[in-house]
């Protein structure tokens, strides 16, 4: 009787200990091991997040070649090359209470990179635009290129 009780409790505890951490990590910020390399080349064409206007209480976020969140264990190598093309976050205006954020080759928006970080941005004959037209009151338009940290707090 005592052995069965011990076995039962042991199984239950083992099950909880095994299952809870695994389920808890589902859909969380990613974990990347030692050494990550990201290279983006945009040439001869456009990249657009929102082609037209963005109305109230909306968020428009465009990230290219960036560490947005999560952890990178070792070296992180980011490079983005934009040649003869346009990169646009919002093609028209952003209305009140909206946020338009554009980040290119940006590190640690929310996360850690414990090793060496190499960050290189090359723009040749091309335009990078966060908001193409107007920004209304109470709106935020934040652009980050080759930066570390947030500028949209």
């Amino acid at each position, binding site marked *: 009787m005592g052995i069965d009780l011990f076995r039962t409790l042991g199984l239950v505890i083992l099950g909880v200990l095994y299952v809870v951490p695994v389920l808890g990590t589902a859909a969380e910020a990613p974990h990347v*091991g030692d050494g990550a390399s990201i290279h983006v080349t945009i040439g001869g064409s456009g990249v657009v997040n*929102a082609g037209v206007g963005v109305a109230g209480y909306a968020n428009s976020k465009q990230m290219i070649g960036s560490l947005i969140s999560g952890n990178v264990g070792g070296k992180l190598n980011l490079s983005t090359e934009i040649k003869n093309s346009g990169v646009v976050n919002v093609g028209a205006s952003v209305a009140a209470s909206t946020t338009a954020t554009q980040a290119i080759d940006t590190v640690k928006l929310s996360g850690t990179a414990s090793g060496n970080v190499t960050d290189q941005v090359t723009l040749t004959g091309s335009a990078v635009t966060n908001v193409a037209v107007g920004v209304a009151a109470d709106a935020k338009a934040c652009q980050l290129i080759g930066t570390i940290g947030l500028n949209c707090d």
Partner: protein
Amino acid sequence: MRYLTLMAGSLLVSATALALDAPNIGAGASLTADIGGTSQSVGGKSYAGVVNALGSVDGKSVVKQNLAHIGDASVGANAKISLSVKNAGVVNALGAFEGAAVVNQSIASVSSGSVGANLTLNTTIASSGVVNVVGAIGGDAKICQSIGSIGDNCKDNPL
């Protein structure tokens, strides 16, 4: 007591199976997407290649497009994702979206899960366009585009 033991065992097996729903990939995974072809006319405009949602939505909607993407998976070391967009376009949402909408386009990115050492993400966009939304966006919308990135920019916390 034996019944309880069996119940606990069943619980363990069931829960483990549930936890293993997310894919587990060993070392050396390689995702390659090569989008070539030529442009076509859609709605009077020239788009081609890959289109996720075409039309208008008035109510609550979620429009997600993932190309060469790792999400909620466990992947071993030396994973490589390569995306090449050549003569055709990639469009997530083509139309007007009013109301609470989430329009998320993630290309050659890792949004969640775990990846081993030496991850490589290569993205080349040549003579075509990559567009998340073409059209008007109404209130309470999230429009998120990530290309060659690590993390999920459609969550509230990062930005």
